C-alpha cells in the first residue's frame, strides 16, 4: 500500500516518489512513495530486512536511489544544494558511535561546526538533555544512556526541520524515554518533522501521528494507529467478568448480535472474551444491558500496534529479501504518481 498524496501538491517535509533500491537482483526497497507532513511524528516499522534501514539511508543521502525521487524539506540531499538540505536534517543512528576521547561539549562543538550551527547552542542543549554536569567528561566515561542523550543532542544541533531517529530509545531508562518523547512532542509542536523507527511497537503506538509498516521493501500499511486498525479490519475484544451462573444469560443476550464469538479466558474463571467486528461495538454494549449488576467488569481492548503489525501478512524476520521476478511477471501495483521518476542525481 502506498500514500496517495502527490509530492508536488503538498509541501511535505519528507517526500518519496516511487523510490527503488536494488542490489543486483535483490530489491531492498521497491517503489515506495510516501509523504510526511511538516510537524508530523511519523513512525517507520518493519521486520529486520524489510528495507527500513535502506530507505533511511537513502533519505539521508547515504545511499543513492536506483530510481525515484527523494526530497527532504523541499530539497534533494544528494543534489547540488545538498549542504542546505542536510543542514535541515538531524540524524541519530541506531548504532551510535561517538568519539571516546572527546568530552560531551567537544563532541557537540565538533558536530556543530560541521553543521554550520551556532556553537553557543551546545551548552544549552547539554543542559536540556541532562548532561550539563558531564559536559567536560570524556565520552568514554559516559553510560549507554548518556551516550544516547548526547547523540540526540547532536541530532538537535542547528535546529533541524527534519529529524531522523533510528531506534532512539536504545539504552534509555523509562524516565529518560518519557523525557525524550516529551521533547519530541515539543519539537513537533514547533513544526519539526520527526521520522522514527523502533522495534518497541508499544512505545510508538501512543506517540506517533502516523506510521508506515514496511514488508519486503514495500510500504504495506500506512496511517494512524486507529486508521491501521480500520484498514486491517481487526476484531474488537471485550473482556467481561461475571459470575458463572450468568453465563447462559450472557449467551442469550449476545445471540442477537451477528458476527461475534464468545470464549472463556483460560485460567481466569468468570471471565469471558467477546470478539466482534468493530462496527458492532455499540450493538454488543446494548445487548449486555439486560445483565445489569451481574456484569461485574467490562474492558474494551483495542488491537495494539503489535496486533496490527502481526495481523499483516508479513514474512518471518529471517526470510531473504524479495527478488524481482522476470519482466512482466510481476503483479500490477498501485502507482500514485502520474510520471515515473528518473534516476536520482
Amino acid at each position: 500500500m502506498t500514500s496517495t498524496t502527490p509530492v508536488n501538491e503538498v509541501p511535505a517535509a519528507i517526500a518519496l516518489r516511487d523510490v527503488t533500491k536494488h542490489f543486483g537482483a535483490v530489491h531492498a526497497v521497491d517503489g515506495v512513495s510516501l509523504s510526511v507532513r511538516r510537524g508530523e511524528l511519523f513512525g517507520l516499522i518493519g521486520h529486520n530486512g524489510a528495507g527500513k534501514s535502506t530507505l533511511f539511508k537513502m533519505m539521508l543521502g547515504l545511499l543513492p536511489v536506483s530510481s525515484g525521487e527523494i526530497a527532504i524539506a523541499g530539497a534533494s540531499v544528494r543534489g547540488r544544494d545538498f549542504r542546505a538540505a542536510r543542514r535541515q536534517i538531524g540524524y541519530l543512528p541506531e548504532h551510535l558511535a561517538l568519539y571516546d576521547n572527546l568530552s560531551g561539549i567537544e563532541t557537540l562543538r565538533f558536530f556543530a561546526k560541521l553543521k554550520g550551527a551556532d556553537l553557543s547552542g551546545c551548552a544549552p542543549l547539554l543542559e536540556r538533555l541532562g548532561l550539563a554536569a558531564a559536559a567536560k567528561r570524556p565520552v568514554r566515561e559516559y553510560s549507554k544512556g548518556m551516550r544516547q542523550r548526547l547523540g540526540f543532542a547532536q541530532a538537535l544541533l542547528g535546529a533541524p526541520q527534519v529529524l531522523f531517529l533510528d531506534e532512539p530509545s536504545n539504552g534509555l531508562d523509562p524516565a529518560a524515554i518519557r523525557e525524550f518523547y516529551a521533547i519530541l512532542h515539543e519539537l513537533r509542536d514547533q513544526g519539526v518533522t520527526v521520522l522514527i523507527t523502533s522495534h518497541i511497537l508499544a512505545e510508538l503506538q501512543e506517540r506517533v501521528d502516523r506510521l508506515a509498516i514496511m514488508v519486503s521493501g514495500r510500504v504495506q500499511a500506512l496511517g494512524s494507529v486507529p486508521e491501521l486498525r480500520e484498514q486491517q479490519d481487526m476484531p474488537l475484544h471485550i473482556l467481561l467478568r461475571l459470575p458463572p451462573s450468568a453465563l447462559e444469560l450472557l449467551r442469550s443476550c449476545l445471540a442477537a448480535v451477528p458476527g461475534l464469538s464468545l470464549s472463556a479466558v483460560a485460567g481466569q474463571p468468570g471471565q469471558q472474551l467477546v470478539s466482534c467486528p468493530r462496527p458492532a461495538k455499540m450493538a454488543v454494549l446494548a445487548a449486555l444491558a439486560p445483565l445489569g449488576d451481574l456484569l461485574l467488569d467490562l474492558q474494551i481492548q483495542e488491537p495494539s500496534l503489535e496486533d496490527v503489525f502481526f495481523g499483516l501478512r508479513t514474512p518471518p524476520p529471517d526470510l531473504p529479501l524479495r527478488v524481482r521476478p522476470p519482466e512482466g511477471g510481476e503483479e500490477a501495483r498501485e502507482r500514485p504518481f502520474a510520471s515515473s521518476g528518473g534516476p536520482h542525481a
Partner: protein
Amino acid sequence: MPDIEWRQLATLAGKEFRDRMRNRWVLAVALVFTVFSLVITYFGAAQQGQLGPRSIEFTIASLVSLVIYLIPLIALLLGFDAIVGERERGSLDLLLALPITRLELLLGKYLGLAAALTLSTVIGFALDGLLLFRQFGWPGLYHYLGFVFSSVLLGLAFLSLALLISVLTRERTKASGLAIALWFGLVLVFDLLMLGLLVASGGEFGGQALAYLLLLNPTDIFRILNVFSLDQVRSLYGLASIVPPALANPWLMGGAMLAWIAAPLALATWRFRS
C-alpha cells in the same frame, strides 16, 4: 572543480590532529625518532672505532636506513583505520549525513594525520639537527634539512597509501594486515627482488631501464634522493652503480615522490566517492 568548503576541511583536519596530540601519539613518535636518530648519529661509526658523527654525509646515510624502516611503518599504522575504523564503529554514516562531501572527509582526515606525522618527524629530528649544526655548521644543516624534508614526503606518501587501504577494505583487521603486507613488500621485499633479478641475469636484465623501476617504490625514491645529494656516500649503496644520472635529478625524484603522495590519495578519493 571539486566542491570543497575549506571550513569543513579545517574542522575535520583539526579534530584528527588534536586527537593525535591529545593521546600523545605525536609525542611518542617524536621521542622514538629523537632517541633513534641520536643513537645512530653517535654510535653509527662505532664499528670503525669512532664515536660521534663522522661526517654529515655518513650520518645522513645511516639515518636514511632508519627512516626507510620506521617512517613507512608509522605512517601506515597511523592511517590504515582512518576510514575503515569509522565504518566499523558505525560513525561513518553519522559523518556522511552531515553537510560535508566524501572528498572533504577524506582530505580532512589526511591533512590532520599528515600534520601530526609531519610535526612528530620534525620534532623527532630537531635535536639531532641542532647537534649536527653545532658540529658541521650551515652546510651540514642544509643537507640535514633536505633529509628531514624528504623524510616528511616519504611519510606523506605512505600515509596516502594507508588511506587508500582504509578506503578499499571493509574490516580493520584486513586493513591492518594489508598495511603490514605493503610495508614488507615495499621496504623489505622490493629491493631484494630487484637485486635478485639483477644478479640472476648477470646484470643484463632490463639494462638501464631496470633502474627506473625504482620509481615504483617510494622508499627507493627517498633513498636515491638522499644518496645522490651526497657524493661521498653514493658508493655505499649497491644500487648506486645502476642508477642512471637522470634519476639523480632531485626535482625529478621530488616530483616522483609527490606523485606517490597524490596518486594513492586520488585513487582513494575516487573509490570513496563511488
